[in-house]
């Protein structure tokens, strides 16, 4: 980012100093740093993961957005790219990984399957969209989305990050938002602990 972009518009800086000095708000510089160093979790689920690898390779070059450092450990990553079909058998692990990621964390649902079940929605082992369990920030359509589409989604994440003031940031606040998501169980079918009473009553939500 050029220093004049970082500068808040109300302050006049002498022309000879414009290359070196910027007067800005804490929010802006904090979010600028965060948005340009989002580390995705190295976590591929299905077909979309291959397009994610292509996005990381030389032709599309995810490094231009400061996102090339894919971390295999959830403890070191900021962004979870759900790249493929989410199955019931995999769901407890995804929730556990999400819980292990430190705040601030973001989730990008890549492709039709992660967003809503996609072509496999009717399958008995398929979760109809990862947002049934964990909150999603950006949905990228496509089956699979091209690397360009994924990059567009990542830019949307950056936009979102730039619009979050520190004052109201949820990870500095205390509240129910930061509570861990209960991990689903594998019984006769997938059991969401938040829906236990519903299952006992056998009623429609």
């Amino acid at each position, binding site marked *: 980012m050029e220093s004049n972009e970082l500068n808040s518009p109300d302050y006049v800086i002498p022309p000879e100093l414009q290359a070196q000095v910027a007067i800005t708000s804490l929010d802006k510089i904090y979010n600028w740093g965060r948005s340009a160093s989002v580390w995705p979790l190295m976590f591929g689920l299905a077909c979309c993961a291959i397009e994610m690898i292509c996005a990381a390779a030389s032709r599309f070059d995810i490094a231009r957005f400061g996102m090339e450092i894919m971390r295999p450990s959830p403890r070191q990553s900021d962004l979870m790219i759900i790249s493929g079909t989410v199955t019931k058998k995999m769901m407890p692990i995804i929730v556990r990984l999400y819980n292990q990621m430190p705040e601030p964390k973001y989730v990008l649902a890549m492709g039709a399957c992660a967003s809503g079940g996609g072509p496999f929605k009717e399958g008995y082992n398929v979760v109809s969209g990862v947002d049934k369990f964990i909150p999603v920030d950006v949905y990228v359509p496509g089956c699979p989305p091209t690397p360009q589409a994924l990059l567009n989604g990542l830019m949307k994440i950056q936009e979102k990050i730039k619009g979050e003031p520190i004052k109201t940031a949820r990870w500095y606040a205390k509240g129910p938002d930061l509570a861990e998501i209960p991990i689903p169980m*594998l019984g006769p079918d997938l059991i969401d602990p938040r829906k236990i009473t519903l299952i006992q009553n056998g009623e429609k939500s």
Partner: protein
Amino acid sequence: MANPAPVQTLDLSARFPGVLSPDTRPGYSGWMVENARLLEFAAALRDDLGYDYLSSVTAVDYLPEGKMEVVYHVYKTTGGPGLVFKIQVPRADPVEVPSLVSIYPGAELQEREAWDLFGIKFTGHPDLRRILMWEGFAGHPMRKDWHEPYFEEEAKPLKSRWPDGTLIMAESKNQYGDNIAYPKGFNPESQTFDPEKALYAALRTYQKDELGLDTDHIIVNIGPQHPSTHGVFRVAVVLDGEKIVNLKPVMGYLHRNHEKIGERNTFIMNMPYTDRLDYLSSMSNNFGYALAVEKLMNVKPTERAEYIRVMMAEMTRIANHLMAIGALLNDLGAFFTPMLYALEERELLLDIFEAVSGSRMMCNYFRFGGVARDLPEGVLPKIKDLFFERLPRKIEEIDRFLSGNEIIRSRGIGQGVLTAEDAIKYSAAGPLLRASGIPYDVRRADPYSIYDRFEFDVVVRTNGDIYDRLMVRFDEIRQSIRIVQQAVKQLPDGPVMALKPMYQVRVPPGEAYGRVEGPKGELGFYVISNGKPTPWRYHVRAPSFINLTSFGPICIGQKVADVVAVLGSIDIVLGEVDR
């Protein structure tokens, strides 16, 4: 190719009187075997008749007749057409069939799959656990009377969508508003769930040492979220120090019910789903499925379409092997640099796929009787440029960088060895089989499409180690380049579709097994039609899945760090392993 030649027919029924009878249902072929004498028959088949390779085991649920059928496909590794035999058992509870693992160990994972999805108990199987679903899941989902939570109708097109044209969210029909269903009166708080218990019991952690004390081995779980497992694959290993004592692959984390959905879909609707099986080589998957259904329909594709198909299938093989080489090097620690070289060439191939089919990965290009559309303008020069100029040079360049590399040689040569006998025994296919010294390639052994017109060599290496598997892939890329070069030169003009375009194809009743040499090995599609618009049975013989049968035996005795290298050299794709 599934039909045995008439000479064999006479031989076999005379040889096994009272054991065999020909399958006389219209459109079917092969033999019905007497249930109690299956093991005896299979042993004679393997030892006396030379059918040493069990390719596929699958089950069919004939609900109206009240029967379950298990279908076996066997081949000779010296080539030639295969042999199909089946056994039928009444659809009582429990359905029991003798296990063939003692004769063909390659049946192990496939029989577990049939147990998981059909509830067929294989008596004598050493480790009969669920494989794709978790232990404790209610029901056996591929049975015809088992309905998924979003069930609407037996067959598509669903009446609500066509011709009525109303939009119905599947959630609105389910009791819980979600893709879940429980047995009646189920109370989740009254019990605990531990799907892992059976797995750890099968791994047998405790052993007495020489003093008679209980010594504990360490169990290490690799995956399902691990950068080296190529997706959501999990390996549970038992370690003694660093040495692997036992290893079980755990899969199903990407089981997306391909076959169940496939049996609700109409025949043509399955074509795009096959793309998503082995998502690195969609054109090959299309090829296998198209072959199987064309065999049922008795259609022959046009000449031009055949050439285009072969070209696309070989390009897919190159793209897949490039990815496999890059991923193996990733696993060996050369993180991403070799992958970048490989992906650079793969992108050029994907450009061609995008030009002909409209999509980079999920091509959905083949149709019954041809291909969806002709090559667009400008693609052929591009292919010529790539295959006569650039690719041969680039492959040599990547080979030069890698094959002499000291780390690759020391981690590859003599490590993760699969002997030729074991490779046949465990039904390994593709590069895994050929690196072990068995020159078996479906394109030569049982030629399909127009492969008998091309000059190419069946690649073979003899050591069966990680290094040889890598080198086999390089050699196969060279042979594929040769095939594409010949196909480009011989490409005739003409139409690309043998049939008139139609909304739904009519498929006469019967069974068919179409197999192609996919990049990962023999890819087979077993399709049964009963004359309706949807297949009665749709089964995929997935090479990645069956190659994993030999994964455990290769790794036992190796160090734990070699697990990822061996897995990388087997080259699995989870979409195909789990389906």
